[in-house]
């Protein structure tokens, strides 16, 4: 730049600096921001704006035909004091997650351990166990499940061979949720694959060292395998739990969208859907969504905090 007197600089610092500052900023950051443009539009338009909007809506009554009506905390108050369907759907969802996730992971780990012995046909077994996981989230499978667990369905026919008279699983509120748990557990294939990959990463020499010390299979499992697998267990647990909270299609198809019998299959997502799209109570549904967000956030937070105590990362 040409030399300037002190007064000149004081007089016109902005004009001298600005063009090159901005053009420099542009050349440095421009490409990055340009490439991010689609994401920015999506992020602000389809994520941030809706999040803020749904927070606002949660404090209103909104049926989409007229403008939202501010009601303050009414929706939240109603939810926690006055709404048996809310507590029921919470109960159903938590029960579902509490049973399906540990069962799923147990089967996944168990079968992964079996397969990890290194055997002929591993790819075939792996494929066979994985296939239900791939197909399981579809409407077709939910329909199949409903048929299998009907009063005169295949499951009861199978039980009859052992002389057990099975209940009408789907239409009995004591058992309907368990059919959904069974469906979830049937899909243990994908966490199993993650476990397999995790097992494969455990160095051979650790096993050898342990067996040289005289450890039998069980001790090796508890002292070597499992501790080293904890990151994978943790990871699987989080993913499967979040998936469990999001589950919608099976509950919808099996109950015909009602959550019945007696709201025994009223998953939280299904309840939210009913409030929003059957009864058009968008404000209340938004409040329900925020409560779910809070729960997921707390769960994730607590999980990460407590993971320090049981998850061993190699260091």
């Amino acid at each position, binding site marked *: 730049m040409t030399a300037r007197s002190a007064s000149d600089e004081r007089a016109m610092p902005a004009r001298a600096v600005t063009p090159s500052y901005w053009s420099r900023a542009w050349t440095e950051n421009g490409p990055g921001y340009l490439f991010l443009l689609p994401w920015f539009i999506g992020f602000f338009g389809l994520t941030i704006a809706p999040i803020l909007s749904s927070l606002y809506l949660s404090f209103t009554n909104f049926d989409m035909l007229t403008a939202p009506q501010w009601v303050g905390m009414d929706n939240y108050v109603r939810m926690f004091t006055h709404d048996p369907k809310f507590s029921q759907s919470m109960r159903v969802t938590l029960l579902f997650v509490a049973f399906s996730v540990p069962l799923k992971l147990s089967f996944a780990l168990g079968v992964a351990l079996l397969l990890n012995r290194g055997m002929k046909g591993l790819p075939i077994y792996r494929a066979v166990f994985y296939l239900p996981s791939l197909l399981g989230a579809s409407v077709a499978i939910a329909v199949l499940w409903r048929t299998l667990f009907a009063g005169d369905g295949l499951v009861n026919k199978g039980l009859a061979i052992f002389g057990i008279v099975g209940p009408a699983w789907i239409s*009995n509120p*004591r058992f309907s949720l368990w059919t959904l748990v069974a469906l979830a557990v049937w899909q243990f294939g994908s966490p199993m694959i993650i476990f397999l990959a995790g097992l494969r990463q455990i160095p051979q020499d650790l096993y050898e060292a342990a067996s040289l010390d005289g450890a039998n299979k069980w001790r090796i499992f508890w002292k070597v395998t499992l501790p080293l697998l904890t990151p994978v267990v943790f990871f699987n647990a989080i993913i499967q739990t979040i998936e469990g909270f999001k589950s919608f299609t099976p509950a919808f198809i099996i*109950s*015909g*969208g009602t959550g019945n*019998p007696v709201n025994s299959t009223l998953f939280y997502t299904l309840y939210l859907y009913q409030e929003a799209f*059957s009864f058009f109570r968008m404000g209340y549904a938004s409040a329900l969504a925020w409560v779910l967000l809070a729960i997921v956030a707390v769960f994730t937070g607590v999980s990460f905090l407590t993971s320090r105590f049981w998850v061993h990362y190699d260091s």
Partner: protein
Amino acid sequence: MTISIDRRKFLMGSTALAAAGAMGGLSPAQAADVHLRLYWWGGQARADRTNAVSDLYAKANPGFTYDKEFNAFNDYWPKLGTQVAGGNAPDVFQMDYRYIVEYAKRGAVQALDEFIGKSLNLDDFDKDQIEGGKVDGKLYAISLGANSVAMMVNTNAFQAAGVDLPTRDWSYDDYKANAEKLSSKGGMKILADGSGNEPALENWLRQRGKALYTADGKIGWTADDLIEWFKMWADLRTAGVCVGPDDQALDATAAIDTTMITLGKAATTYANSNQLIGFQAVNKNTLTMINFPRAKAGAGGGHYRKPSQFWSVNPKSALVEEAVKYVSFFVNDVPSGLVLGVERGIPCAKHVRDALAPTLSAPDQLSLNFVSNLGDLLSALPPSPPAAAGEVSTQLTTKSQEVAFGQSSPEDAGAAFAKEAQDILDRAAKKS
């Protein structure tokens, strides 16, 4: 004799004809290609007839095409609601007495008064059926037929068990008395579980001088009424008179296919008088119809002649005039009336009814006679239910399941349901 045609004259004539043809051809084209979206609830039997009428309309109005969609009753309302909210409701859709107030208040149905006498012909239409389609004095829906509630009866089952068919005098006690004999053959129960069935409840309440709703949209019954209702059904259930909860829960969507009579779990089921045709189409056994049970011997007044369903028009449709024309054709055209028969109820236009009566088959005659001869079972049409009545009806089903599965006693359920029903109505009122 040879006819010699003067060539010139022929040419001129044919040109004139062609010109006339072209001109004539222009007018249907101007009537333009009308495409209406039609949506209704019902089974395949209804769909076939409705489509046949639409085809007749298309013949009379070249250029007319239509979209035909239908669902089971329970699925129909959420979907329609979504479409209304989304601003893309069908042009012509079916409406029910239970929902008309709600839809009128939401501005989702077209007021039809201005079309009467012009594109909408209601000259010899039953007056009470016209009234049924009015909200606050304005006409929003055209009744497609009068019906009343009725029980479908599996005659073969009764005959096989050696039990007399139910008569119009049977009360719940009579059903109870005959239950064991009927169930002895193959486990079929004599009654479906009607505790969650709103029309059954309404019929029973009316016989006791109560009602579901009052004219000003309030609940017309007390917790005590419901407690007694649930108690009655709990008693019937333990006595093996009605279907068990596991089986009744199979009837989730109100589709004819999954009712207890079609599934062979019960020998009777709660339905409407115009559904005999639909039921018979999917039932291998011969069916007949009888009234809903009396609350006790000699009690009457439960039934009423209801508009079974209506056609309403979407006020936001681009083709309101065309839609109204279609509706008018549907209820007035005699060949269409013959096709529709009494599947949607007894036709409301007298000239259609008169043309139809002689052609009816025996089961259809049954329907017609049933509605016309209710006698002491009949009393006045109740006011149209308030907004959110549909949700109360759903809540009744859930509550009844609670009692049936033993999760709640009739006392608790009756009291709770009274509170819940009031809560639902209050919530809906607050919104508008």
